[in-house]
């Protein structure tokens, strides 16, 4: 299979401080790739660089087109949905308005309405709360809303920034189940950033490990799961 996303020699900066050093990574079309690493290793920065929210240099290609240095709005319009850390909920707007915001780049009232129903199909609890202010939802519901909002873009690639953060284990299990289904049914490729390595390696088929802004290892998820160092450092057994 071909690569949907490729980054080569990617450097990222906050002001004059460099945080990513020559990253090279690939996301296979239709696959789920995960980026693992400790706190502050540069996982979030990597995702932010890919969607044009950081100052970067190096090469980023999406579907063969170079997107490095482009504005976030334009990158999103190519079909990259970024589910940010902290979920990016529009807390004063209703659940349904949040989903409509997600479809803001698209036209066709009927199609959008159908897609909202489809999202409700995956997340029935959002349908129950459709007229509720999104800020009043539980953390798990807000995370589902964030994924739902991303789906409204009809993305080809979803960038997920720690979707398990702060959620109860049962909720995480449900959410990751739905992510797997979305990947299969909707043909959405995913790049998943996680601190919970066991969870991520379970879902993903390819994995990268990042330490202080540099990639230190990559391979099939299975291989990383069996690696003794990874197991000790990140899986904790």
């Amino acid at each position, binding site marked *: 299979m071909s690569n949907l996303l490729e980054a080569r020699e990617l450097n990222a900066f906050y002001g004059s401080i460099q945080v990513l050093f020559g990253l090279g990574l690939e996301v296979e079309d239709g696959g789920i790739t995960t980026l693992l690493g400790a706190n502050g290793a540069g996982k979030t920065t990597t995702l932010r660089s890919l969607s044009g*929210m950081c100052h970067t240099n190096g090469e980023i290609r999406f579907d063969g087109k170079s997107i490095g240095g482009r504005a*976030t*709005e334009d990158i999103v319009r190519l079909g990259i*949905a970024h589910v*940010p850390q902290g979920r*990016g909920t*529009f807390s004063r707007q209703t659940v349904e308005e949040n989903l*409509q*915001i997600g479809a*803001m780049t698209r036209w066709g009232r009927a199609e959008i309405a159908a897609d909202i129903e489809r999202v409700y199909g995956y997340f029935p609890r959002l349908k129950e709360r459709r007229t509720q202010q999104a800020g009043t939802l539980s953390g798990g519901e807000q995370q589902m809303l964030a994924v739902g909002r991303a789906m409204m873009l009809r993305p080809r690639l979803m960038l997920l920034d720690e979707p398990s953060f702060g959620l109860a284990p049962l909720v995480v299990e449900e959410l990751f189940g739905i992510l797997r289904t979305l990947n299969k049914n909707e043909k959405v490729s995913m790049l998943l950033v996680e601190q919970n390595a066991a969870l991520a390696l379970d879902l993903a088929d390819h994995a990268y490990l990042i330490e202080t802004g540099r990639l230190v290892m990559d391979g099939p998820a299975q291989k990383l799961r069996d690696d003794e160092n990874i197991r000790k450092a990140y899986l904790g057994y």
Partner: protein
Amino acid sequence: MELFLHQVLAGLATGGIYACMALAVVMIYQAIDHLNFAQGEMAMFSTFIAWQLIQWGFPYWLAFGATIVISFAAGVLIERVVLRPIHDAPVLSHVVAFIALLSIFNSGAGFLWDWTIKNFASPFGAGPFLGQNLINKHDAGMIAVTILLLVFLYLFFRHTRIGLAMRAAAANPESARLAGIRVGWMTALGWGMAAAIGSVAGMLIAPVVFLEPNMMLSILLYGFAGAVVGGLTSPGGAVLGGFAVGVIENLAGTYIPVVGREMKLSIALCIIVAVLCVKPSGLFGRPVVTRV
């Protein structure tokens, strides 16, 4: 009793104008987190444009509509040309830009149309409304136009996609960008709409205060008072605040002997100070919490 009712209605009429100014201020505040001090002068300049069009022989309502369109375009242009390049700059740069805009429009109007006071005709006429002595025709017309405008804006923000996009961009710019919304253009649109709303306020109040380059100074102050009362983060609150300030100002001017006509403006400042002391986020605003 009749005096009281009369004063309340007159207060609501001018309050509607304050409400418009408050709304214009809040719209820009929501989008860029700064108070636009030049809002009043922009409205004044728009009113001069309307006056000029009428002088050239345009019928009133055509001039009214044309002025709204011109003001909207000018508002968008100002955001793109003046504010866009400094959108990352610190507060002080914004303040300086606003003061510059203020004095440019003020002196520009004086230069183009000179500083003499001009009459601005009311499209509603003078005389008592419906033969009653409670409210005159122009005041009634002001209230009607203000309410129409507010209903239009409400429907726009609640029920259109672009209205939702603007709300999203103001509420959470980063998230809005991730949804593909062009936040910069939404801000420019907000400026255009604020300028257009201000132009309506200017054209409605001009027959009352007379047209001259400094006419909006006190109006904007009342508008700020209205916005602070309602809360700078709440458009609906700002509108209510504007109406409240109009009524309070009128009643105080009538019933508190020391206030009279001369001291009316200080009422606005007293209200601002009082609200900031008691409830800094305003009656309907959200308290702002910042992590440090």
